[in-house]
């Protein structure tokens, strides 16, 4: 029994190439791991760059659309200005109402609305907290936060 063990150890010692293969294997593993991380990093940074460029482009487009919106709003006001509307009304055969021609009707519960401008399309600044942390945290920051908070690292 002891002899067999000695033989195995001897045989192992007599095969240094195995040790070298192990080293080479470990080295290749590290290289492949590093390459994978590098590829992953490259992929993420490339995507980030593309997204950043897209954001820059969108900002320019947003500014352009806002300008166009303001311009169209003013053009619309041109088309509905007092003078134009009066002219159109006259062309359509309307005339100004006289006091005696008006009929007043009581509408129960009616309250004259206060001046208000509808702003459904008004641009608002998105709140800072509206963007989830997943979109801004790095892996390291996420790990640190989970460890500090004592939360599990898995769902």
């Amino acid at each position: 029994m002891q002899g067999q063990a000695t033989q195995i150890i001897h045989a192992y010692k007599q095969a240094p190439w195995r040790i070298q293969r192990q080293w080479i294997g470990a080295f290749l593993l590290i290289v492949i791991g590093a390459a994978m991380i590098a590829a992953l990093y490259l992929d993420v940074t490339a995507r980030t760059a593309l997204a950043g460029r897209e954001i820059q482009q969108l900002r320019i487009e947003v500014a352009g659309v806002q300008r166009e919106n303001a311009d169209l709003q003013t053009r619309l006001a041109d088309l509905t200005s007092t003078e134009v509307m009066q002219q159109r009304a006259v062309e359509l055969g309307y005339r100004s109402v006289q006091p005696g021609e008006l009929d007043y009707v009581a509408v129960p519960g009616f309250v004259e609305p206060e001046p208000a401008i509808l702003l459904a399309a008004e641009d608002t600044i998105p709140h800072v907290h509206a963007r989830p942390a997943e979109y801004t945290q790095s892996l390291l920051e996420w790990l640190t936060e989970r460890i500090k908070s004592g939360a599990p690292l898995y769902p």
Partner: protein
Amino acid sequence: MRQQYAIRSMIIVAGLAVVLLAVIVQIIRIQNSEQAIIFLSQGSRYAGEFQMVYPERGNIYDRNGHLLAGNRMVYEVGVSLNEVESPDSMAYILGQYLGLTYEEVFKKLTESPESWEYIVIQDYVGAETVKALEQLINQLEDADDPRLNGLAFKPHLQRSYPETDLASNVLGFVTRDGRGYFGIEEKYNDLLAGNPIQIWVPHDPYKADQIPKVQNGTSLVLTLNRDLQAKVESILDQALFDYGAQNGTIIVMDPRNGEILAMAATPRMDLNNFTNYFSLYDNGSQFNRAIGMAYEPGSVIKVLTMAAALDNGTVTPETTMIDTGFIEVGGIIIQNWNREAWGQQNMTGCLQHSLNVCLAWVSSQMGTQAFYRYMERFGLGHATGVDLSGEAIGRLKVPGDSDWYPVDLGTNAFGQGISVTSLQMLMAVSAVANEGRMVTPHVLHSMVRDGHQYNVPSQVAGSPISSQTAHTLNEMLAISLEQESSKALLPGYRLAGKTGTAQIPTDYGYDVSRTNVSFIGWGPVDDPQFMVYIWLQSPTTSIWSSETAAPVFSQVAEQSVILLNIPPDVVRNQLASQ
């Protein structure tokens, strides 16, 4: 055999390791070399740029959401000098399209400093012109013609007024440097314009989220009613024509809260062509005469004199006096407008016939101290605090001033020797129409920012008289209008009001041939919902307010009740009783 392989493997690994080490050493060496520092500094120059960002100027709306001032897209037409291949042709084409001379454009294209890469040919070019130029560029590109190579258009916004001259005296205007002048545009310039900021815009896409968002200017909602404003301006223009007056103003205000519903003044200017300003106005006070020009108002001020005397307990509506046609105050003889004696009169009669002698008697009975205390309470000689730029404060001489004389107590009582603006009179008399509470006139109804509307609360400027006094005087003024069969009356509506005819003071005394005619009135008397002030300068068809300003008041009142949905008194009372 395996030994040999092992040695070879070792040699290869060692060789690769040496190469790798050499690469790393080289990387570190290059990154820390002197050239690297130079390259880095060169690179940082293109890392981004500072940009001055001017926020979009806020819009101005009337109370019903009609746009009174907005922004229109215009273009900066420029040229990238390095791309220009035919300056001669470009100068000719741009000269034709932009209304410039060939020499002017050619000089810019050819004589700009060497270091310049881009020049502006013309700014604030309209969209139609740019569209035509873009079509031409497309045609030339299709034909592979390089004559307009390098031409670029940069869009930006310019202030625009869709209603051109409507309410121009209230709105003011914005020059090309983005600054507001007069009216709302000047008063709220900081709010409307927002805060221009210089920001760093990185070209690095990783820093895209570092570009700050610039907040646009605040939009404003005014108390003006666009339709009523248009009608009032039309009535004013017609009145100037009909009565041959030089200029005029009409203000319509809600006496319950001080909201100005319409404010017309002449002359008006097309706000889109603000360069016309200097041809229309001699000085800034003429831009909006309703607030910028003080004048001797004449008999409309008798409303305040009577209010003060009633509130002080000096007189009651039934108090009588014998009008002999003249009264001596401070050693000076004061006469009536027709220089006649009107006999025994009660206080309503004094107002109805607008008797100077009677009102001078009333102020004399009150005494100097009480009379001027009330005039100050009514805000005369002080700014109203209206939110418009360029307000004048007029002049109320008081005892102790070097130019005050005892006769002023008598003359001030009927509107001579005292100067006020139209808006000051409206504010002061609002106490009579609003149960003793004097309201601060204002034009701003609310501000709109970040999608939220913030309403501006109305303010009470004081209570110079009691509610009882206001009721009494309301009734007296309504009766005096009715008994006089005034041209100011409007069928179906009970109104109160007072005329004012004032000779115009000159350096050599009063000019008897020219007058300022005014009218102040409100209605319906039992629930005043609108107040109107009218001032016409130097009418030529008649010098009397009762024949000029009074009928104008009736027209304005008629349009006010229609556009403000105020039913006739009978109908209103029926509806109220339902």
